[in-house]
């Protein structure tokens, strides 16, 4: 008895496995991503669980919103959207991407929250020759011939706001950020551009102060140093719960009257609700704001608000634009939209109309050449929201 049960179940497992394999190869015979009925398979990989699930859900909802407002079609073909969970990073993202690329055989991949996840999935994309139209994380990559991003490069927010800070702050600026790759890139973008236009940092050694990440939850000692430096303004980048801690403690600190400039993520989306009054008057730079005045944005925001509470974020917008990019590329890829044909078509798109304003892919980095906006946290009806107060530089190479 004790011997037969495992043996029988093993045989059963083997039979089931054989069945599953034969079914999946049978499906695979249709060719990558397209089926006889003319529908097309797109893979969306985003963090639906874990630390970044708020961002991941915005990315999924942004893409689905585009499909819902375009009859579920991209490039005139019915879309079969396969959603997979990226989890917290590459360890969970790679198996999920493997399933999308090798089992579901999608013609294009989109989404991906973390830069580390993109780096992990990158070899798979090269192996399967499927294009990625990413809508958030963008690490340093050697060859971007199949990689496209509708978001931004980490250096760009800081580079876009440097001139404005130089023109409007009378005195030196203190730069502070979290000690990891994203923080280094964001702050380097600002400090390089700021130095180029003749700005002076207030940091005692002339270099950005980096706080241990994610260990730092008490910013009081850093605020004391900022006070002692005599800085006329502060530039920073934090996201998630660190952004909430930073902003709440800043508002109660001795530098609460020193103007605070930041990359937009400091006050974007859910963290703004958690910060509440403490976030009032903070200036931030981002490539999108829900109150931008153009026809595409009015339609986008109205469609979003019909389905969700609150306004769309830059994450949802980037994913909505990824769908728009695929829509036009699949339409232009001809009667047989293979992954290769779609990838080639993305390179020929030129100007793309978007709720953020018109943008286009850079030919070298494959990320947007786009305009950045200066926003300030202000009262909007009953809630606080990021309100556009001006245009900043157009950034991208």
């Amino acid at each position, binding site marked *: 008895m004790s011997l037969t049960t495992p043996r029988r179940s093993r045989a059963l497992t083997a039979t089931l496995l054989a069945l599953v394999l034969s079914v999946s190869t049978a499906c695979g015979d249709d060719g990558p991503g397209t089926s006889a009925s003319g529908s097309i398979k797109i893979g969306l990989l985003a963090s639906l669980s874990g630390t970044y*699930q708020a961002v991941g859900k915005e990315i999924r909802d942004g893409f689905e919103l585009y499909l819902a407002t375009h009859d579920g079609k991209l490039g005139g073909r019915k879309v079969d959207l396969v959603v997979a969970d990226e989890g917290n990073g590459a360890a969970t993202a790679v198996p999920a991407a493997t399933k999308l690329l090798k089992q579901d055989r999608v013609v294009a991949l989109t989404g991906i929250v973390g830069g580390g996840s993109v780096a992990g999935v990158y070899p798979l994309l090269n192996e399967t020759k499927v294009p990625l139209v990413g809508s958030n994380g963008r690490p340093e990559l050697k060859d971007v011939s199949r990689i496209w991003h509708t978001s931004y490069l980490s250096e760009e927010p800081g580079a876009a706001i440097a001139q404005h800070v130089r023109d409007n702050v009378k005195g030196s600026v203190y730069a502070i950020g979290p000690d990891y790759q994203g923080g280094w890139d964001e702050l380097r973008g600002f400090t390089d551009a700021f130095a180029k236009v003749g700005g002076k940092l207030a940091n005692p050694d002339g270099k950005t102060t980096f706080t241990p990440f994610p*260990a730092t939850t008490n910013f009081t*000692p*850093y605020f*004391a*140093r900022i006070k*002692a430096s005599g800085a006329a303004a502060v530039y920073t980048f934090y996201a998630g*719960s660190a952004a909430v801690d930073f902003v709440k403690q800043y*508002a109660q600190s001795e530098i*609460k009257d020193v103007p605070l400039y930041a990359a937009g993520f400091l006050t974007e989306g859910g963290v703004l609700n958690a910060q509440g009054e403490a976030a009032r008057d903070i200036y931030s730079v981002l490539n999108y704001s829900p109150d931008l005045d153009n026809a595409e944005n009015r339609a986008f925001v109205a469609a979003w608000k019909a389905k969700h509470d609150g306004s769309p974020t830059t994450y949802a917008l980037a994913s909505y634009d990824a769908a728009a990019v695929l829509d036009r590329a699949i339409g232009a890829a001809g009667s047989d939209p293979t992954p290769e044909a779609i990838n080639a078509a993305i390179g020929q798109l030129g100007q793309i109309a978007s709720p953020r304003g018109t943008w286009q892919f850079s030919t070298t980095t494959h990320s947007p050449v786009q305009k950045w906006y200066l926003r300030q946290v202000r009262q909007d009806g009953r809630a606080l929201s990021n309100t556009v107060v001006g245009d900043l530089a157009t950034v991208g190479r």
Partner: protein
Amino acid sequence: MVVAAGTNRIDPYLIPALDGVAYGLLVFVAASGLVFCFGVANILNLAHGLLYAIGGYTAAALLDGGWPSLALALAVGVLAAAAAGVLLAGLLTPVAAGNHLTQALLTFGVALAGGSLLVAGFGPDDPQVQVPAALDGSVVVAGHRYAAYRLVFIVVAAVIAAALYLMVRRTRAGMLVRAAVDDAEMVACLGVSPARIRAGVLAAAGALAGAAGVLGAPIIGPGTDTADTVLLLSLVVVVLGGLGSMAGTLLAALAIGEIQTLGVALLPSAAPFLLFAAMAVVLAVRARGLATRWGAT
């Protein structure tokens, strides 16, 4: 600036030093339970951080910006963490006293399972804590702005520390505890069940951690890694302060607070490893910690 050059040099470090006291007292209230457990009942409780996290999550769930909610959260948090402590004592009953490896494995398992339960119940995001509206601002201390809640917290935590000291020194329960440190067998001979002392000590440790969790939630907030952070800090307190004395525990906790705030303000580039460098120095100079026994205080 009309300030003299001498004060000007100390001035920037005033607020970090004050904040170090707030942080240190929080670490003291949180860690004293662990020290108490280890020193008195000879139990190495690696689930101690979990007890703090229970208090933290209670605060996040119940606080709504009013005073009654603070009282309610404090009561619920202390009771829940104390109950968890008694539960731990029950689980530890079959384990021989002093068998630290088995205790560590058991309590560590409980900490992992409990941590997952908290995340399953309250979600993976760090919940926000709303302090009473009257304290949700800043006050001016010697010409500097400082968070009002933290200032009040310093007073409250100092009161808790004093009450703890008086309890250990002056009450019958405190005498039993001190007696148990000195000679557990003799206390057992006098007719006091070691199992009851153990349950009582773990409940008291839980109550202290729960109170620290509720009151300290705006400082070390509830989140997925709160339990680990608090356990780590508490273990550093044990290493620095030794097991025997309350003065040693207080001294070690205040030292940790100042290292984490004043130290970071003075030497920001060394911030990531300052705490452990200090620990290494203390161990190298004085292997038995900063002071000696609980009973001797």
